[in-house]
């Protein structure tokens, strides 16, 4: 019975992982990149040079400058949303409602962290694109896309749980790696990537589902609140219903004293966001939300003031109850904005391990299935399809990501909808990677796409030096480690991809005695070994078919 259970879990693990593996790979890799959202945005907006305000007095001055700017440019807007500059994000992002604007009725601007004036930054989504893509894809209806990603995340959770059951020797396999042994090596690599960061994989998948649970699992709320969404939002999120404008003009009070009061209330914490409803009206409110980089829990701490008098109207999030706090902590763990650079680096590495886990899993399936198919002498369409998609997803996505960085530097600054074109560049490159394996089969497709990714990433610091004044030649002598580190990181990614391309190109499936030619990056799908591309090296015999 026990073996039967393990076998059925092995089946479940294989199929739940494979069927959505390519989506999961993209979600994992772009989600990992999203840990560096502020750094990516900073790199993509080289025009931003002003450092963020540091002292409370400077922060208050900045906040007031931003409010003044909004009062001048959007006095009739029903709501402003201002995210204050922080050390990692030394600029202010502002959104405001404008019934005249297209789409969802918002306008947006990037403001200088000192003067509060608009910055002449190039049109770009920056790191926001990877962050958004990892849970709502692109070119798609947002709720539909979030449902798709949630659906795939559920498969991931099932794959992890069934994978743990399947895995008999979880501890022993941790120390097991058998390189050059065909599918055994892929199995070991898959297990190492999975086991190494197993708590992280479980955590990130479950908490990812939790971040979207109000959309995917609303039934408890519907039943308990009888469909009264407003009451639900008020009780669950502690956000009051926005008051109706009184129609009586009243200027906004200075925001500095409110920030000071909030900081006292939060024992020295600082506000990260300001939200203003009905600005310029007697019924206006100013809502301060504590910066989410200061706490593990994502359960927002909020203070709401009257915009006309400055009187404190309400506070929320100070005394979280268990379930709300559990959700807050799960959310906070998922987005990983708390903690110092070391913890974020660990999250980044774990995210890469998760990406590698998905990738090796997909390749493992193709290698094993092709071996079995080769024994029967016929390789079916299913195997070829999986192999093709593996190349396009795993090797193609880095090419697409690098292409977006190139587009950021090369597209003309006055191009209309420039930010959209950077993203079109990402998808055009990815689309080409999807077509490329039709022309170049098997291992060559892997090698060429990894090599392309290596070149694109590795040359980015050079491109940066040719197109901006914040390149390594300047940032290294100046000790600007933030910017220099990003350029060096791009170079490191390029070198890593080059190393992978080299390993794949040199790998001969024949290296493993008795192993049949596989179908992973280390092999080619032809029924016979291609001697031109697999010369016998070091006097080793080429494996017989």
């Amino acid at each position, binding site marked *: 019975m026990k073996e*039967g*259970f393990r*076998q*059925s*879990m*092995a*089946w*479940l*693990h*294989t*199929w*739940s*992982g494979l069927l959505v593996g390519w989506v999961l790979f993209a979600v994992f890799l772009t989600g990992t990149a999203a840990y560096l959202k502020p750094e990516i945005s900073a790199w993509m907006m080289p025009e931003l040079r002003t450092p963020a305000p540091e002292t409370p007095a400077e922060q208050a001055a900045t906040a007031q400058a931003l409010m003044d700017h909004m009062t001048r440019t959007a006095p009739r807007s029903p709501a402003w949303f201002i995210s204050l500059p922080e050390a990692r994000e030394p600029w202010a992002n502002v959104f405001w409602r404008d019934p005249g604007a297209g789409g969802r009725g918002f306008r947006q601007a990037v403001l200088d962290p000192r003067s509060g004036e608009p910055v002449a930054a190039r049109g770009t989504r920056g790191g926001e694109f990877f962050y958004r893509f990892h849970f709502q894809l692109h070119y798609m209806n947002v709720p539909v896309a979030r449902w798709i990603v949630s659906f795939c995340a*559920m498969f991931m*959770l*099932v794959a992890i*749980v*069934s*994978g743990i*059951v*399947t*895995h*008999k020797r979880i501890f022993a396999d941790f120390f097991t790696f058998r390189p050059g042994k065909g599918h055994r090596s892929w*199995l070991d690599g*898959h297990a190492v990537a999975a086991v190494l960061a197993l708590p992280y994989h479980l955590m990130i998948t*479950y908490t990812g*589902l*939790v971040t979207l*649970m*109000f959309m995917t*699992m609303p*039934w*408890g*709320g519907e*039943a*308990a*609140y*009888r469909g009264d969404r407003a009451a*639900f939002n008020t*009780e*669950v999120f502690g956000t009051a219903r926005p008051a109706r404008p009184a129609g009586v003009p009243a200027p906004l009070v200075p925001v500095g004293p409110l920030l000071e009061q909030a900081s006292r209330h939060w024992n020295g914490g600082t506000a990260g966001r300001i939200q203003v409803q009905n600005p310029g009206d007697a019924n206006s409110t100013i809502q301060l939300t504590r910066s989410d980089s200061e706490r593990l829990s994502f359960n927002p701490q909020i203070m709401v003031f009257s915009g006309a008098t400055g009187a404190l109207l309400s506070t929320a999030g100070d005394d979280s*109850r*268990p*379930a*709300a706090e*559990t*959700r807050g902590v*799960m959310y906070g763990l998922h987005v990983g904005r708390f903690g110092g650079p070391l913890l974020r680096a660990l999250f980044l590495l774990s995210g890469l391990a998760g990406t590698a886990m998905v990738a090796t899993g997909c390749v493992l*399936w193709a290698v*094993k*299935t092709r071996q*079995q*198919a080769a024994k*029967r002498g016929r390789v*079916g*369409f*299913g*195997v070829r*399809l*999986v192999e093709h998609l593996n190349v396009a997803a795993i090797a193609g996505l880095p090419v697409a990501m690098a292409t977006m960085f190139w587009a950021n530097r090369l597209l003309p600054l006055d191009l209309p909808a420039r930010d959209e074109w950077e993203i079109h560049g990402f998808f055009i490159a990815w689309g080409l990677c999807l077509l490329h394996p039709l022309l170049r089969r098997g291992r060559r497709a892997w090698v060429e796409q990894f090599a392309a990714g290596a070149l694109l990433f590795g040359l980015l610091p050079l491109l940066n030096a040719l197109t901006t004044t914040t390149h390594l030649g300047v940032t290294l002598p100046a000790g600007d480690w933030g910017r220099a580190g990003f350029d060096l990181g791009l170079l490191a990614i390029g070198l890593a991809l080059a190393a992978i391309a080299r390993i794949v190109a040199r790998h001969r499936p024949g290296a493993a005695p008795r192993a049949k030619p596989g179908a992973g990056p280390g092999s080619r799908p032809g029924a016979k070994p291609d001697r031109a591309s697999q010369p016998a090296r070091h006097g080793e015999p080429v494996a017989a078919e």
Partner: protein
Amino acid sequence: MASAAPSSPRSGTASEADAGAGAAAGRRRRLPRAPRWLGILSRCVAAILGGYALASLAAIAFALWLPAARPEAVMTGMLASFAIHTGAVVWVFAAGNAWRAWIGLLLPGLPLAALLWLTGGFA
């Protein structure tokens, strides 16, 4: 070990391979005489839709019956629902055959739904 890759003699398409994998996983032929792909399809429906329905029922039960403040009860149900869904999926594919898989979902699901309906939970 993810060693259940399909070994179907006719793994032509992905769906055929799907059916073949069932043979690999369950060499002992636990599934009834119905075509193997039908059993797998039935299990997939049970796992995805049936599991979601069971998780939703449990979330509603938590929201209505948990002796806690209303938002707390609602959120507890939501947080737990994904674990319940995962458990349901594991059960569906561990069960001896597709019929048992469905029965295993309906056994807790139907009484729960009936109780919720009787107490006005769906009103």
